[in-house]
């Protein structure tokens, strides 16, 4: 049941990206290109998604626990630390270079584009490299718990 529900959520999310045009990296670049022929579509996508999820998350907090799981995994971190700032900057550089963020990158695998496949492999490698590097720099076992809680999304 859990698997069916999450597949459906991914499917709806995918249709959202597809209909909004955000699967197309060139359209995302059109939003980021404020000096060119600016396309504000991405701002509308974000605003609509925020209004719906703000309302939905408020409803979700009314329930003691999720429908198909024993607990909710709300992110717990609140501080703006160095990894957040550096990580968001590095991500911004990559996003600006190609116009792909993780969701549309994975979804575009459906097009079997060799360039998308190369991007996704590099992205996965970047994630693995981060986790190897981060595990190496962790020496105290007490970081285990904070590692799981560190994920914002």
């Amino acid at each position, binding site marked *: 049941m859990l698997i069916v529900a*999450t597949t459906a959520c991914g*499917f709806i999310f995918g249709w959202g990206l597809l209909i909004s045009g955000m699967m197309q990296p060139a359209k995302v670049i059109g939003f980021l290109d404020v000096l060119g022929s600016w396309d504000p579509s991405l701002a509308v996508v974000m605003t609509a998604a925020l209004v719906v999820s703000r309302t*939905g998350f408020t409803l979700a907090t009314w329930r003691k626990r999720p429908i198909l799981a024993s607990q909710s995994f709300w992110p717990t971190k609140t501080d703006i630390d160095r*990894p957040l700032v550096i990580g968001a900057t590095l991500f*911004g550089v*990559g996003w600006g270079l*190609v116009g792909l963020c993780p*969701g549309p990158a994975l979804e575009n695998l459906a097009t079997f584009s060799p360039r998308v496949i190369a991007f996704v492999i590099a992205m996965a490698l970047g994630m693995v490299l981060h986790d190897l590097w981060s595990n190496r720099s962790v020496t105290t076992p007490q970081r285990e718990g904070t590692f799981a809680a560190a994920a*914002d*999304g």
Partner: protein
Amino acid sequence: MANFTPVSAAIGGTLIGLAATLLMLFTGRVAGISGILAGCLNFGAADRSWRVAFIVGLVLAPLVGGFVGYPIPSPQMPDSWSVIIVAGLLVGFGTRLGGGCTSGHGVCGVARLSIRSIAATAIFMATAVVVVALSHHLFAG
């Protein structure tokens, strides 16, 4: 603003918000794609199945769309393979270090009014705008 498509953007954004809501309501998880993918790549993790299922659903959307005749855009990417590889590495490493991407921070985090996510979103948006301005205008070949 010749390419502005507000109606389809609003419909698509609504579906993205709906998917994030349903995932939280049913499974208690944040719909952050970078976190979901990173969990898939962590072969020791116990909760990989729902993550794989979400990504399967994500990829199924355009496959089913194409099957029923919905136009699927052919992705326009930079010519340079090295730019693509470097960008992919930066997106992968950066989203892990920063704890999220456009979905986890940009949608779910901002919707929770998390200061952390609002800061991350402002930083990656501003950085990407600068990178596009430099690469498309200042250093445009």
